[in-house]
């Protein structure tokens, strides 16, 4: 309880974290509840009259193929978030596991992990993504997440490795060893809880970079063609020349939605940073 109050007070003072989380919560709520409230059939090709500007019937207008843009937007949001979260979770789990192993075991294994992550860092991820994405037969949301994750685990690995290296020299880890704790118990009971703020921070960073890569790929037309995502919506609007035709309601809303997601992630990440550093400084 005490802890919870402390956290709440900290959050109140940390405005950037507060607003970031607020924006993200709103987006997630829309993505979760929205699809239940709209008629999915309106997002199919030819469901309505094409190329209608926003009106009472279609709040965000319709696209060149007669899809209702509001419905498209609401159905695309969860898909995009799903890719981002899945990619974030996959790469975070890999990153934390590798970081902990590298930091704790050390020696040869550490060298290999560090070398691999350093090399991966220098490879331009988008090039590989384009290469892979243009060569798979059919792109799905799940495959997309795995591909993106395989290129973004390094951030978490490096952060967690560095923290583990410093934590394992802490007095309480030595005391735990004298207390008879060994191996996994030492890692999970003594080290991991103190890594939580760092894990949360790298999660946010990883999710952002995963979503950025995803949307980039989609905008290039390399995303899942048969699914509705924010990136694919932008791609189609471009494909049908929405900008030249002045159909701002087609390309505008997905860009606003993406911007909001990134502003939310950025604020959260910045807020967490000061949170994490304060903790690291005082504890």
């Amino acid at each position, binding site marked *: 309880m005490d802890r919870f109050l402390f956290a709440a007070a900290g959050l109140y003072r940390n405005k950037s974290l507060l607003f970031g989380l607020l924006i993200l919560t709103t987006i997630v709520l829309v993505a979760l509840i929205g699809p239940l409230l709209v008629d999915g059939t309106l997002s199919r090709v030819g469901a309505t009259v094409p190329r209608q500007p926003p009106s009472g019937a279609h709040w965000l207008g319709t696209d060149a193929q007669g899809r209702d843009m509001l419905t498209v937007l609401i159905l695309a949001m969860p898909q995009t978030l799903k890719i981002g979260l899945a990619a974030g979770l996959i790469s975070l789990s890999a990153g934390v596991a590798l970081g902990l192993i590298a930091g704790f075991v050390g020696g040869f294994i550490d060298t290999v992990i560090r070398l691999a992550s350093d090399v991966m860092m220098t490879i331009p991820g988008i090039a590989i993504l384009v290469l892979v994405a243009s060569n798979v037969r059919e792109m799905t949301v799940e495959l997309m997440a795995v591909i993106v994750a395989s290129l973004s685990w390094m951030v978490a690995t490096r952060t967690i490795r560095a923290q583990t290296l410093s934590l394992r020299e*802490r*007095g*309480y880890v*030595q*005391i*735990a*060893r*004298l*207390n*008879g*704790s060994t191996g996994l118990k030492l890692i999970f*009971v*003594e080290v991991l*809880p*103190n890594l939580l703020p760092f894990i949360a921070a790298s999660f946010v960073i990883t999710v952002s970079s995963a979503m950025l890569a995803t949307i980039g790929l989609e905008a290039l037309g390399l995303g899942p063609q048969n699914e509705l995502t924010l990136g694919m919506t932008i791609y189609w609007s471009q494909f049908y020349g929405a900008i030249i035709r002045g159909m701002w309601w087609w390309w505008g809303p997905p860009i606003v939605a993406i911007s909001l997601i990134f502003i939310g992630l950025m604020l959260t990440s910045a807020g967490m940073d000061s949170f994490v550093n304060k903790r690291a400084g005082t*504890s």
Partner: protein
Amino acid sequence: MKKVLEVRDVDVVYSGKPALRGLSLAVGGPRPSITAVVGESGSGKTTLIRLLLGFQDPSSGSVLYDGNPLTSLRGGAQRNFRREVQAIFQDPFDVFNPFYRIDHPLLTPLKAFGLVRSRREAYAKIESTLTRVGLDPAETLGKYPHQLSGGQRQRVMIARALLLDPEVILADEPVSMVDASMRSTILEILYGLNRDLGISLIYVTHDLTTAYQVADTIVVLHGGQVMEVGAAEAVIHDPRHPYTKALIEAVPSPDPDKPWNLDESVDGPGRFLPGDEKLALYRTDPLRAVAAPLREGEEATTAAAIQFAVSEAKAEGIVRSEP
């Protein structure tokens, strides 16, 4: 029979630079005693503690517990070593995991070593041990580390070591980060562990005065080598090695009338650093040895031998018969 923890002819080298050279030291045995290892930064005292705890291996020589090298300990013997050789560290803040309550480091060892059958038994044991180190269990347990003072935390750490029923406690600067008012309380507790419970201690410190307060034997460590070793009373009041003398003179007396010669130009401790020549400890009297360049044909001794001699003499009431 009490077990002995010792380092035997140990060298430790960190990337070409020696941290400890030819050190032999022991703690424990049938006559439990307190040995103070006094040294300044860079003397090798932290390395010594890490060696004795098995956190680090020597570059050459061996660390033995109950006659067996630590590196060869397996299974039950290893568990016994872990439980019976305990430590108290310098920083009473860093040794607590900020994530857990005070109870955590006290409960963990009892469970890990199977010393209790139930939670109730564990808490009964914890409470009586906390009381022993002068803490009120009701006001200590259930709190987070940041809610206790440095002195309280350090006593919780002593209680933690005690819970394991240790043979040997290594205390690494246990009072240097504790307020002056708490220092003598903690030293008194440590002294009591030896006197009342028969636990042997190594008290590692930079502070000669507190070493003098609690120790039977003082070992003066400098540049990774023992400069002088002997009964505490004798080393302090009749130092034989120039480094020991300089160290004692650098300590300000609590009596303002006792001259300290602050204006005398003092050289740094560097001038006492042994060169590359090999040093050996030579007995100057039965309970004392001083480092000198190796003399062919003369029998050298070790700090461990002097430690045992002092413990023996103490048990027979020869030294330190207090006024």
